[in-house]
């Protein structure tokens, strides 16, 4: 059995900052990591591999991104993936949801056409849009289950526990299918030094658009139905009074007055 895990590399989100004067992004010192939800997906794939030994599961990690995305795939290999592909090509630059899912669809169906299950994170923490997995599933013509937290394999079907606003659902669908994971085991895995060492010897291939027989009209900026017309700094709200709170009694009193003056609390 073969599980493909689609992963994304993201900046460690809470560290991205904007230079207040120039309005440009400060990227220096911002680490790139494997998107946490993608790590949940990989974690689930490895868990399945470990618990269904009779199925002889192979876990393949695939990502699309610039060359430095290799480090995210390396982490996948450390954590238990058997091999990895990086779809990397200047032609992929500027891909929107449609073009990204087109490239991923081609990647999966050309590199691992005999896949049984695709696992992905529910969303990436840099964009949080949660749209690429579902659109990839649609392009591959396979069913999807989003917001999964646990997967069980039963012959040619899977059962997925899914988080909903109201609680949980147990869903079942046939394979091949795509599941997006919103949680993994409570504690992130840690590779052993042996796994770190071994991961350096596992296959990690870089695949270009040509390798996938994709021309510019199918991927990247040109193939993206959405286009960015303008970027601008977010409107800045002007802050109100900031008072010194080194005397807590006075500060609390002033806070109370503010709330009364603005009618959040009634005057007594």
């Amino acid at each position: 059995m073969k599980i493909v895990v689609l992963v994304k590399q993201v900046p460690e989100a809470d560290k991205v900052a904007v230079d207040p004067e120039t309005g440009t992004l400060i990227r220096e010192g911002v680490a790139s990591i494997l998107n946490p939800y993608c790590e949940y997906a990989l974690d689930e794939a490895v868990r399945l591999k470990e618990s269904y030994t009779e199925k002889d599961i192979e876990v393949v990690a695939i990502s699309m991104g610039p060359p430095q995305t290799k480090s995210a795939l390396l982490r996948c290999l450390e954590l238990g993936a058997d091999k990895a592909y990086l779809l990397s090509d200047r032609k992929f630059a500027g891909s929107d949801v449609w073009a990204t899912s087109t490239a991923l669809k081609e990647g999966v169906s050309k590199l691992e056409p005999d896949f049984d299950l695709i696992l992905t994170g529910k969303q990436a923490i840099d964009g949080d849009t949660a749209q690429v997995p579902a659109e990839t599933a649609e392009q591959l013509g396979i069913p999807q289950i989003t917001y999964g937290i646990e997967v069980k394999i039963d012959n040619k079907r899977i059962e997925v526990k899914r988080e909903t606003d109201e609680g949980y659902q147990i869903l079942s669908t046939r394979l091949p299918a795509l599941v997006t994971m919103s949680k993994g085991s409570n504690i992130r895995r840690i590779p052993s030094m042996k796994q770190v060492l071994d991961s350096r010897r596992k296959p990690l291939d870089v695949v270009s658009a040509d390798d996938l027989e994709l021309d510019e009209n199918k991927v990247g900026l040109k193939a993206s139905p959405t286009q960015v017309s303008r970027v601008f700094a977010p409107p800045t709200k002007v802050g109100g009074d900031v008072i010194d709170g080194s005397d807590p009694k006075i500060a609390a009193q002033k806070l109370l007055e503010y709330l009364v003056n603005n009618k959040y609390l009634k005057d007594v």
Partner: protein
Amino acid sequence: MLEVDIDACTGCKVCERVCPFAAIIVDPETKKAKVLDNCTLCGTCVNACKFDALSIERKAVSEEELLLYKDVFVWGEWERKEDKITTKNVVFELLGKGRELADKLGESLAVVLAGKDIDHLTEELFHYGADKVYLCKHELLEQYSTDGYATVISSVIAAEKPSVVLYGATPNGRDLAPRIAGRLALGLTADCTGLDIDESRQLIQTRPAFGGNIMASIYSPYTRPQMSSVRPNVFPKPKPDTAKQGVLEEFDVKLSPINIRTKIIEEIISKDEGVKIEEANILVSAGRGIGLKENLGLIYEMAEELDATVAGSRALIDLGWLPHPQQVGQSGKTVAPNLYFALGISGAIQHLVGMTSSDTIIAINKDPDAPIFKIADFGIVGDIFEIIPEFIKLLRMRKQSDL
């Protein structure tokens, strides 16, 4: 064009059974699928075919064809609350914005409403601004399913050719919209915070990029409809006009169980309704600055005095101190209460994007340079553990003097 790979086709008739428009049949003579003229390219059959025998080659639409797409659609998502089916709030918010867009375009505003027992929802949709409701009723739509809903709504879109379709960026909205975009090869802009029509009648979709550090305006010049999703609480809910009426059009739904590949085996509704931070009037929100989990007690104490709801920044959710539904921010919920207390929250941009639409923001933080002060209406530089106990004391004194 919908293409049939004659070699792959086995003549199994699944496509015939799933087509919402009876536009594909298996030719009794050749025993192969055959596409009829009334095909809308909705893509249902492509998904249903188990032999990869069907594919759609979508060509760029010419400018003249683009002009044929008219009207603004909103997906009418509903929810079941204590066995009652009600329209989700985000739909009303989208109707408010959709009305604006439709008026600018001089077109009409419609809701695509899919489900089973949903007739009673239409009236209210008219009150909130819809000119028309496409009612798609079917046994198999009793519960949300990706395949069922994607099929029906794609069919409506393929048949009616709207220029704009809006979705709430709810869990199901995020499950559905990309599926439709994938099927119809459309652009989709998720989590928009601004929508407008420019002079060339394009939909300009504005959304935060790079974690909210910059805003991007996005448009889809060559495809129709233009599709966007918007998070709950981003646009204001309009005032309903109870006198307003509209046109109800029942859209004939053809759906077969084989369309729906995913089955619900069990549904577990947690008894505990959970805290709904997105519906609270007053939110007391805590961040990393509270230091220890035990200190949350103080936050709850303050919330109780103010009759407020407790929320938190990502840091606290990551630590497992608060459950995910109580997270404010980009990877959590967008909230817009009347009053928002940011306690020990420095104000990373990912947090700010989730709460800037609050009416009044109060911030207490030790660090005078914390970005939260740039957007707070009232800020105190100081120690929350010194100030809040004093503030609680004052609130209690007021209550006592009230009695």
